[in-house]
């Protein structure tokens, strides 16, 4: 009848009913166990100990995550699956494998932003863009829904169209290049193919990649296009210049690398390079920033920083050679890290042309 009759501490802590009482404090179980203790005074001590032991475990091993946080994660999950369901397979019989989902999760690497309206493509009359030769047969996808839609191209590259975005391309890519036209905002994850560069034409800019991933944000009316790179390397050209011969193209194009962005302002007509708004440490480069630095030469810290963010940091190595630094550089944004370092060595920094310039003085005196 009384299954707990012979229970000692070990048995109580492993009993589900007992665990529930300690963990959830339900009134029903409170009544049950209080009564039980009164009726079985000989076991009171064991019950007391078991309860204390379990309480300590529940107290110590719990981890707080709020209901809102969980709800947020779940709705992101469900949304991602809905987006996936709307995926248009441009190539027949290509299954949406799990690895593609992983790709997407790891993806947002380059952000290209700004205005891109498909007017007459300036390249219409040169053979660089075969797209315009066969305009009638262009494949076109417009995302008219309220959520993003994923397209998988024939080369397994992925394009995620934000609401309102329009992507156009030929039914199949050329043998020497892959080209698409974009209006609106889209994310690209490009399958590497050194023999066939991937070109995204927006109204004012052309972004050329061999294999990487990026988002194109291109909304009407801003008069600006921004290309932001988180990882990898792309070349950006003014669309008007892109068709020109290789010899001259070099002077118009600009190479954008990790944590940099290029801003093109239609009124000024120039490409301006800058650091991303919030540069991020590249995957696998977290390195020493977990632990911080103690009396480390600042030159070493700056090199580590440059390596982790893949950003150029320009400083006078001889001048700063004897400046030691003690700091924890873990969670702050890059700019804050630079501020901390500069304060410690009484230097200033400036971001110029997508590079960080450190202006310091010798620490030897």
């Amino acid at each position, binding site marked *: 009848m009384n299954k707990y009759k012979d229970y000692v*501490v*070990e048995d109580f*802590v*492993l009993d*589900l009913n007992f*665990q529930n009482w300690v963990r959830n404090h339900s009134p029903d179980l409170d009544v049950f166990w209080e009564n039980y203790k009164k009726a079985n005074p000989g076991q009171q001590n064991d019950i*007391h*100990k078991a*309860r*204390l*032991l*379990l*309480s*300590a*475990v*529940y*107290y*110590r*091993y*719990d*981890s707080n*995550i709020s209901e809102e946080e*969980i*709800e947020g*994660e*779940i*709705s*992101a*999950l*469900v949304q*991602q*699956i*809905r987006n996936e*369901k709307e995926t248009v397979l441009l190539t027949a019989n290509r299954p949406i*494998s*799990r690895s593609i*989902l*992983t790709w997407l*999760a790891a993806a947002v690497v380059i952000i290209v932003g700004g205005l891109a309206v498909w007017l007459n493509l300036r390249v219409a009359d040169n053979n660089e863009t075969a797209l315009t030769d066969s305009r009638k047969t262009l494949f076109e996808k417009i995302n008219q829904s309220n959520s993003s839609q994923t397209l998988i191209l024939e080369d397994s590259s992925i394009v995620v169209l934000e609401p309102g975005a329009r992507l156009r391309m030929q039914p199949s890519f050329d043998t020497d290049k892959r080209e698409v036209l974009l209006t609106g905002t889209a994310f690209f994850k490009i399958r590497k193919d050194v023999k066939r560069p991937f070109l995204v034409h927006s109204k004012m800019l052309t972004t050329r990649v061999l294999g990487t991933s990026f988002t194109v944000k291109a909304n009407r009316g801003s008069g600006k296009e921004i290309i932001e790179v988180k990882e990898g390397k792309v070349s950006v050209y003014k669309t008007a210049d892109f068709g020109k011969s290789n010899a001259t193209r070099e002077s118009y194009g600009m190479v954008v690398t990790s944590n940099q962005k290029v801003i093109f302002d239609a009124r000024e007509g120039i490409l301006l390079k800058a650091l991303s708004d919030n540069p991020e440490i590249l*995957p*696998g480069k*977290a390195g020493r920033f977990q632990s911080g630095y103690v009396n480390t030469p600042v030159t070493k810290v700056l090199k580590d920083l440059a390596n982790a963010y893949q950003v150029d940091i320009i400083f006078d190595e001889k001048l700063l050679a004897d400046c030691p630094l003690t700091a924890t550089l873990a969670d702050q944004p890059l700019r804050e890290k630079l501020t901390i370092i500069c304060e410690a060595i009484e230097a200033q920094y400036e971001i110029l042309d997508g590079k960080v310039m450190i202006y310091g003085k010798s620490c030897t005196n």
Partner: protein
Amino acid sequence: MSKGKELLTDDGVTWDAFRKGDESALGQIAHKYYRSLFRYGIKFSRDREFVKDCIQDLYLELWAKRESLGDTDFVKFYLLKSLRRKIHRESVRRHWAAEDDEPNWEIEMPVDDSIEDRLIELETNEAQWHELNRELASLPKRQQEVIHLRFFENLDNEAIAEVMSISRQAVANLIYRTIRELRERL
């Protein structure tokens, strides 16, 4: 496969809907296990966002495999085991851990906000409470993991053995040794 013994007969309808491709059913299932997974996963990495990403991936994998999945009775066990493996694999990939490292079990000190009420309720004093907490913190990692899975997730020894890739007997031994060591502190 009778692992986990987490019989969820009332979830049968949700589970069937999930297997037929209903993403809101996945949402419900994901919600049900989220806290368990997070609480377990965070022991292997202090990076909350990292743990959350791993859980998202895990659910996406579950979705991708939905048609080949069996009954619901071992979902929780399966998820815990997969999460443990995934976090380890990801940590290796990010060079936080070596391939053959044991998963790193670590708990943060909880914030002592209002333990006084609790101490009265538990009829104990602060000294004993802290002693017990210290003891818990100094237990070998495996022992901590075993009692987490047993006390928090109510997995049986067989399921714990599967999750941690050790023998059932080893689990039983670890549990009893841990309880014995802890009760000596009481």
